[in-house]
């Protein structure tokens, strides 16, 4: 493991909402908690470089493996967005230092979207939010495709994964190379770290820990209008940091990002110079500086 990553102070599990969430913790457990929520196909240890710095600010940083990822509980039929957001609401209650004390959350990519849905569901449990390049798919991602083709492809994918286990990769190096070919801006050290804690050994090689069910699902009419509708119910001060460089899985930029953040009651938006989708990995100093300023502004700095 490179010097830029620190081993968590503690590892534990939380039993919430009928599942088990793996959690990696840094800092004083009695300090104000902040929950870190990773993106799709990642895991809690992707915060090993960032979470210790939040602990140094005086937080109890708790990075979870989202349901269906890492060591956390498995899935039944698709990505379970609703269940994951209920998990976060329950975790906020469990971690609150005193009854009814709201907590902070930081989410990246899919995790950024999940913390917004959670905060729209139970505004009273969240004191502040930081969304890292997680405003949802770009507008063109909602263009209606041929529903027969989409549905047939979805069912074929379910049949495929139910019929055969994921194909193992011969080595972790191969997995890092494969992921690096997708997320081309990620440094090799991060890719190796991602793979080291995000895979498990099976007969014939290595597979990702994330549940193969996660990448399946059925069409459900999910729409941009629904995303924007929930934003109107988020009352917690929210900082949104978006990427500035073209990258895989990059979410939304410029006017579209401004339009979405304008739906938040207390939102602020900033672009991170020189960063692709993993803003906190590529520009951790900038991201930490903006989070610190944000917490100072809203009086949430421990």
């Amino acid at each position, binding site marked *: 493991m490179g010097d830029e990553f620190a081993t968590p102070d503690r590892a534990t599990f939380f039993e919430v909402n009928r599942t088990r969430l793996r959690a990696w913790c840094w800092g004083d457990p009695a300090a104000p908690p902040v929950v870190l929520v990773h993106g799709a196909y990642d895991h809690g240890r992707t915060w090993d470089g960032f979470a210790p710095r939040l602990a140094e600010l005086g937080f109890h940083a708790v990075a979870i493996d989202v349901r269906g990822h890492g060591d956390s509980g*498995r899935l039944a*039929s698709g990505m379970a967005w*609703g269940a994951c957001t209920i998990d976060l609401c329950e975790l906020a209650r469990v971690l609150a230092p005193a009854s009814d004390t709201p907590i902070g959350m930081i989410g990246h990519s899919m995790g950024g979207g999940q913390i917004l849905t959670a905060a729209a569901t139970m505004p009273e449990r969240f004191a502040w939010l930081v969304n890292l390049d997680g405003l949802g798919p770009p507008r063109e991602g909602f263009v209606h495709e041929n529903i027969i083709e989409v549905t047939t492809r979805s069912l074929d994918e379910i049949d495929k994964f*139910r019929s055969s286990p994921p194909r193992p990769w011969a080595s972790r190096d191969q997995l890092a190379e494969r992921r690096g070919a997708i997320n081309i801006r990620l440094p090799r050290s991060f890719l190796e770290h991602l793979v080291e804690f995000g895979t498990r050994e099976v007969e014939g090689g290595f597979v990702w820990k994330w549940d193969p069910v996660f990448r399946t699902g059925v069409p459900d*009419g999910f*729409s941009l209008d629904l995303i924007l*509708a929930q934003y109107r119910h988020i009352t917690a001060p929210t900082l949104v940091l978006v990427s500035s460089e073209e990258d895989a899985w990059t979410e939304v930029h410029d006017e579209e990002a401004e339009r979405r953040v304008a739906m938040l009651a207390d939102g602020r938006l900033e672009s991170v110079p020189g960063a692709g989708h993993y803003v906190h990995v590529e520009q951790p100093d900038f991201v930490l500086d903006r989070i610190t300023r944000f917490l100072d502004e809203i009086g949430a700095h421990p």
Partner: protein
Amino acid sequence: MTDLLVLHDIGAPGGGEWAAVFAGWPGRVMAPDLPGHNGTPPPVGGQHETGDAVYVALDLLRAEAPDELVVVGVGHNGAAAQILALGGRAAGLVLVDGLGGPWLGPDDIDSQLREMRRRILTTPAAISGLAPGADDLRATMIVGAADRGFAVRQAEAMPVPVLLIETPSSATPDTDDLVDHFAQATLTHLDARDPGRVASVVRSWWANR
């Protein structure tokens, strides 16, 4: 030979009553107790989703490999039955109060979703550990199809003959309008969701299609 797959409603007793009323159907009848119903374990992780019935159905269809299939979706699981038909898994589709509704705009759909999640979060039994067996409480905590635009897109794309059976239990306010969006649909009204009468209508429709 045409086999039959019945996906019972969420929160309903299970597949047994449907298997009984379709006894004598010329092909095989599959009417599983869906996850969290009638002794079938709840879904992994305890969260009920519209997709649950689809995953169960696909497992069954891989195992049974029917030559031809009619899928029946009852109530909430009309959504699952429509997905199976759109995805090329059925030669005929029957929806028993299964079109969805009431129809809502994005703000109201979002409100419904948030209210449902809050109801789960404030019901200790709904978020506590999973008990074996039926899951009557959480199984009913699911939001139905409420986007009329999506329902119309599905109807217009439906590639197979459809029988719509509507009863006073239906949540769909405008079936008489929606039926026109299907290329091949027959609409029948019954004065109660009686499985025996539903089975009789389905038999007659398929025999005379």
